[in-house]
């Protein structure tokens, strides 16, 4: 009787069939431009999954995920730039000559290696997140103070990257669309279609991974941290360790998302660390549904798609709609759209309209009364 999962299994399954069919069919249905957008938004969904893990499950509201997102993007762009710069003076990326740099900065060197790059894309952001996170969590900084600190860190990175022309081309960022990979232009339609499929697979893998993390006792500990961290300490768990781990996981996921976003956008720049963008990331999860992984994915993809459609038709309008969405979620849908569906939202609306039988608010009241109190 008290098993909402079983009742909802088949609509959920149907949803997945539709989603997978849509992913497979998209390249033959959508124009190249739209497909590219979808690929980009799917890479943002990976970032959203990480945010859901730390915010929806663990209660850590990070406004600084842009740091890790951009780092992943830079790692990918640095490899692509090096891979395509053999024809340039000194065999280093072209932009260096603008600033009179004739030797590759030391930290670029390992990015000649594709394997190193593939690992650095997620490991560098994850390690940075672990270090930053641990410093904050160890000192028991929580709630809004944590959010402020992450935003401050974001600004520090943003300003630093903006100013480093000689190291990473500063404000201009690193272009990837005219670089070469496997002997092809990264910006070519064939390559982009490949990236689209790869991104879709990565979203599903990331979803499976995060789901594995939040299922079981580890996930229960995360929820316990969110709901009552001191109580968990007295149960013998060390919340700092758990928070550091999930923050690192979210950082790694943001890095992967950033790399995939970069190769599909054709550029990575410090704008990826702009404050509003990191706040947008949080809104995707809030609208989709905190604590529901599908909600994070759908929130990221659908909001970004809506944003690009609205911006094409009515360039100034999107900010109003985004603000409206946020107000709607805060006032009417605290659990987000998917959360609303999962908490009997549709049935409540139907019963208010008189279209469905009202449901009791307290389950099994009948049995409750008769039960004996006997330890």
């Amino acid at each position, binding site marked *: 009787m008290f*098993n909402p999962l079983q009742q909802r299994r088949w609509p959920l399954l149907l949803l997945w069939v539709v989603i997978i069919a849509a992913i497979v069919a998209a390249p033959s249905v959508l124009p190249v431009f739209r497909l590219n957008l979808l690929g980009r938004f799917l890479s943002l969904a990976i970032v959203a999954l990480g945010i859901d893990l730390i915010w929806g499950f663990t209660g850590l509201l990070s406004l600084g995920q842009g740091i890790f997102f951009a780092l992943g993007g830079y790692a990918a762009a640095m490899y692509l730039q090096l891979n395509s710069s053999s024809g340039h003076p000194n065999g280093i990326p072209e932009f260096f000559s603008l600033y009179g740099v004739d030797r590759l900065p030391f930290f670029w060197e390992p990015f000649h290696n594709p394997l190193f790059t593939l690992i650095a894309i997620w490991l560098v952001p994850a390690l940075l997140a672990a270090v930053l996170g641990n410093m904050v969590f160890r000192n028991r900084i929580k709630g809004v103070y944590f959010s402020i600190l992450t935003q401050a860190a974001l600004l520090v990175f943003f300003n630093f990257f903006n100013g480093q022309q000689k190291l990473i081309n500063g404000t201009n960022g690193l272009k990837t669309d005219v670089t070469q990979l496997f002997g092809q232009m990264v910006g070519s339609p064939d390559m982009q279609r490949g990236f689209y499929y790869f991104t879709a697979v990565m979203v599903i893998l990331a979803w499976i991974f995060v789901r594995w993390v939040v299922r079981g006792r580890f996930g*229960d500990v995360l929820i316990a941290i969110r709901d009552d961290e001191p*109580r968990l*300490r*007295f*149960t013998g768990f060390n*919340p700092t360790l758990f928070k550091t781990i999930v923050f690192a996981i979210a950082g790694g996921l943001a890095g992967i998302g950033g790399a995939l976003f970069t190769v599909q956008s054709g550029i990575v720049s410090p704008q990826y660390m702009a404050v509003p963008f990191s706040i947008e990331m949080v809104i995707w999860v809030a609208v989709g549904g905190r604590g529901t992984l599908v909600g994070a994915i759908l929130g990221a993809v659908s909001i970004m798609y809506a944003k690009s459609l609205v911006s094409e038709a009515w360039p100034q309008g999107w900010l109003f709609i985004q603000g409206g969405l946020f107000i709607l979620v805060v006032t009417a849908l605290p659990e987000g759209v998917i959360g609303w569906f999962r908490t009997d939202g549709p049935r409540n609306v139907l019963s208010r309209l008189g279209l469905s039988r009202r449901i009791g608010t307290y389950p099994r009241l009948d049995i409750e009364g008769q039960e004996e109190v006997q330890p």
Partner: protein
Amino acid sequence: MTMPLLELRQITVSFDGFLALRDLNLSLQPGELRAVIGPNGAGKTTFLDVITGKTSPTEGDVVFKGRSLVGTREHRIARLGIGRKFQSPRVFEKLSVQENLALAVSRPKQPWDLLFRGLNATQRDRVHHLMSIVNLQQRATWPAGALSHGQKQWLEIAMLVGQDPDLLLVDEPVAGLTDEETDLTADLLKSLAGDHTVLVIEHDMEFIRRLESPVTVLHQGHVLCEGTMDQVQADPRVIEVYLGTTEEENG
């Protein structure tokens, strides 16, 4: 006399000059059941905070199984074998009864073990056993937030026992319970003593009397006196600060 399990030596806790505890001495023998009473503001909760590491004493030392706990972090103290039940029931409301208990019996409590391994058979049996002790088997998959107040109290006690601590610190376990539930809780705590050392903080005099245990009276952060319930109730100092009103009501 064996070595005490827990010893508080001249504990003073000062909050910006306000002495929540002053020069407090107390020792508990292994297997003992002890009740602590005291009027509001006597320092009962601070006293638990000091033992469990939430508050550091300004002066003095807490010795548990021969080692000092001062400066040890909460989760380490919990792993050493001290469990605490809070005044108002604090269970993880979004988790089911079963999941709450699974976290309590989990051991080791490191992230890798929780990620890569499930509960072993012994631990699963323990979870079921604990649910049967507190009569919550029917509620195994219920979110703990949907339980009644009394059931939450019991769930928290079950979680405490699930941690398998040597010392159980129980803060007002019968607040808000019916008389029947109160009696059952007293029996439960009495049955735990012996295997465990139990320290109960409570306001409810009838409940303390039912525990049939030595009583320590706290007043203004200091131990006023110790003895059986009858001795304590006859003590003129206790009557003056605390029990006077109760005596009149009972008389």
